[in-house]
């Protein structure tokens, strides 16, 4: 402040608050703030009063009450006896899952389309324009519903896979089943040696990072360029595969046996039979998968009961519970077993490779085993990705076009190849322009995922903002929590992206 701004002697008069430019703006702001707080206060009081009049005072106790409804896609354990709070968490995880998958695919598709739209090939660039206009100009809700409708109508139902003259067959060596309820892919089952394979893989990843640093340093110091893509790929695959096959060879000598309160019987003709209604303690390892395959190959009908480990299986065997109990399990041969349990004579199983695939298997109404990606998840994921990709493509295109042509030409004049011009000159500059609007696209995608209920995907809006709200009648409370959660997700995404933006933005020195 300059010296002339010193207030004159004679003290402070109230009218200065309005007529003195030094105070006026502050006065106005304070009045606006008071007005704002008053209206917020009035709104809150009004809502509170109305709720009290309806006899429903604000309260969050319902979150600890029993939910009573089931949810199909659960990333963590949940059943209808658990609380509304737990159901909300299940929904939140589902929201995060689809948002995460969606952001990744939307980015991949969007960037490809944005770049291709600038292609010199007339047909390619027109097709990309068509794509962008088609997706940008139809509401995303319609895309979601259309995707789901197509999915349901086009693909076969599980029972079409049954029988000799089945209409539908599984794809890729019988490992993938595409049904109108969802796509089943093999689950991973781990066998002996998996830890070693895993450690090797992690070390390879670290190795790649170090190699890349070294290559960069070498290039900066000597100008020598290593074929780093090829070498990285080599480090990625070779050591892990070597360890994998080595472990597989070693495992050839390892065996699993079947044991339990009941046994499998080896018949004279080498077939295997069992008591009807036998229940299998399914611990999910590779030996376990081989046991199930053996039983299925012999036409034994069994019920799988999920179990965590050997100890869990033992308790389940002795519990006698009709729902959670089980009769037989597998262990590596030679494991000491408690009294009263028998090893099935003459039946030994290959312990399995470090990683075995557990293929989907049609039993009863549906496929069991394998991982089910439900139609609702796929439809929502697909539609959100394709829709958001159209916007991302435009962002990418504008980012690339923002880099002046002179840059490309200058780089060309220096003798750089087109691929390097893009990766070393154009993209680093384009990213500065692309990142900020990209943040809003990610936010849009996440918020649009709340349309999930249109296809029956149980996201947070479907659980907390749907069934829980409806069954408990707690509209106000549910919506407040819902808004707070979306706000938190959005703020997290923008913080992360802003940090990234900070890193790629132009540094002025």
């Amino acid at each position, binding site marked *: 402040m300059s010296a002339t701004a010193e207030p004159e002697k004679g003290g402070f008069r109230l009218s200065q608050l309005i007529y003195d430019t030094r105070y006026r703006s502050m006065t106005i702001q304070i009045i606006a703030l008071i007005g704002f707080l008053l209206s917020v206060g009035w709104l809150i009081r009004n809502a509170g009063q109305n709720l009290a009049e*309806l*006899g*429903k005072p604000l309260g969050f106790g319902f979150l600890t009450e029993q939910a*009573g*409804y*089931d*949810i*199909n896609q659960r990333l963590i354990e949940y*059943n*209808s*006896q658990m609380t509304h709070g737990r159901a909300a968490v299940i929904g939140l995880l589902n929201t995060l899952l689809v948002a995460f998958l969606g952001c990744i695919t939307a980015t991949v598709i969007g960037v490809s389309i944005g770049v291709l739209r600038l292609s010199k090939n007339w047909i390619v660039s027109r097709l990309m324009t068509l794509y962008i206009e088609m997706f940008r100009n139809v509401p995303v809700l319609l895309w979601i519903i259309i995707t789901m*409708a197509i999915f*349901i*109508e086009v693909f076969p*139902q599980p*029972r*079409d896979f049954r029988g000799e003259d089945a209409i539908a067959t599984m794809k890729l060596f019988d490992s993938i089943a595409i049904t*109108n*309820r969802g796509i089943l892919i093999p689950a991973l089952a781990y066998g002996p040696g998996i830890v070693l394979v895993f450690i090797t893989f992690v070390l390879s990843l670290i190795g790649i990072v170090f190699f890349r640093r070294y290559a960069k340093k070498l290039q900066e110091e000597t100008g020598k360029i290593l074929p780093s893509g090829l070498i990285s790929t080599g480090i990625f695959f070779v050591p892990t595969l070597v360890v994998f096959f080595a472990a597989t060879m070693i495992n050839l000598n390892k065996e699993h046996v079947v044991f339990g309160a009941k046994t499998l019987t080896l018949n004279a003709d080498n077939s295997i039979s069992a008591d009807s209604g036998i229940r299998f303690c399914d611990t999910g390892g590779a030996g376990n998968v081989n046991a199930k395959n053996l039983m299925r190959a012999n036409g034994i009908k069994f019920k799988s009961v999920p179990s965590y480990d050997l100890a869990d299986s033992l308790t389940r065997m002795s519990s006698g519970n*009709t*729902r959670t109990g089980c009769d037989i399990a597998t262990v590596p041969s030679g494991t000491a077993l408690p009294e009263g349990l028998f090893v099935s004579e003459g039946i030994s199983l290959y312990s399995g490779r470090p990683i075995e695939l557990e293929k989907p298997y049609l*039993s*009863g*109404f*549906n496929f*069991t085993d394998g991982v089910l990606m439900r*139609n*609702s998840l796929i439809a929502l994921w697909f539609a959100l990705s394709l829709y958001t990709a159209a916007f991302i493509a435009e962002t990418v295109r504008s980012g690339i076009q923002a880099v002046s042509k002179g840059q490309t030409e200058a780089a060309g004049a220096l003798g750089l190849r087109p691929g390097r011009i893009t990766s070393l000159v154009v993209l680093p500059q384009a990213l500065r322009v692309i990142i900020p609007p990209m943040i809003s696209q990610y936010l849009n995608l996440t918020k649009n995922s709340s349309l999930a*209920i*249109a296809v*029956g995907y*149980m996201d947070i809006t*479907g659980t907390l903002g*749907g*069934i829980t709200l*409806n*069954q*408990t*009648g707690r*509209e106000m409370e549910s919506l407040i929590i819902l808004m707070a959660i979306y706000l938190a997700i959005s703020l997290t995404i923008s913080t992360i992206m802003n940090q990234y933006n900070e890193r790629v933005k132009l540094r002025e020195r």
Partner: protein
Amino acid sequence: MKKSVFIGTLAAVSVTAGMAAASTLDDVKAAGELKCGVSTGLVGFAAADANGVYHGFDVAVCRAVAAAVLGDGDKVKFVPTTGKTRFTALASGEVDMLARNTTWTFSRDVDLKFEFIGVNYYDGQGFMVPKALGVASAKDLDGATVCIQTGTTTELNLADYFRSNNISYEPVPIETNAEGQAQYLSGACDVYTTDASGLAATRATFEKPDDHVVLPEIISKEPLGPLVRHGDNQWGDIIRWTLNALITAEELGVTSANIDKMSMEAGNNPEINRLLGTEGDLGGMLGLDKEWAKRAVAQSGNYGEIFDSNIGEGSPVGIARGLNASWTDGGLLYTPPFR
């Protein structure tokens, strides 16, 4: 100037506050139409025809109320609601009453602060499966994929039933009956479960209804009835007694065909006289005129006529009266006397 704006605002606020406190009856009369929440489309219960005119068993209750209150059964604005949106619509005043196959339960009555005014259909939850699956009992449904409408009692019953029978299932949540039908028919779910009446109505619209069976198990009690908000007893009474009038009319043999003749002058059955307003002033006690019940019954007939023309055995839906017969015929319909 500033003062007058301030006072004007204050006045406006108090007027709106005053309006909120006025009775639903006055609101409906002032608006000249009854806002009635119905389902988004369930043939026989509530569905719009090609001209946008609503027909159905639940719709008839709305029309009877409009006839009693406004003198014209067409002065109804039908608001389609899903299982999920219906309660919010009623609580917020978007509709004056709800007639949407809604089950009367303790928590809806007590915790959600609604008033169920009676039962117009005694129902229970059932399962429908394609015949080709060869399922004979709900106990055989282990591992099945089940389409289920969210925000309903049936969703909770389903979870309880499978849990207590130790069988597993995969729920597919849907919002409207139409969605459920699409998923079920394309085989995206093996089973469709909802109120047995809803199953019958849905099945009636199928191209080949005979390819589908409703399993014998009925797993719950679903007394369906119209409801209003807590707190306006006069309005609750009007709806309650309009429904009772329809049921009583059947019991007393008053039909849309003979009602005009019967209400000409007092006959020798005093209850009919009181019902039709030729004796006493029951309508006045409700805040309506003497002929309210006559108009309600004349609108689409008595309970029996409404049942037969919309969902009865002569209609495509083809439901037998069963529990929904008058108590004089071995059913559960029994109304308090008109006196």
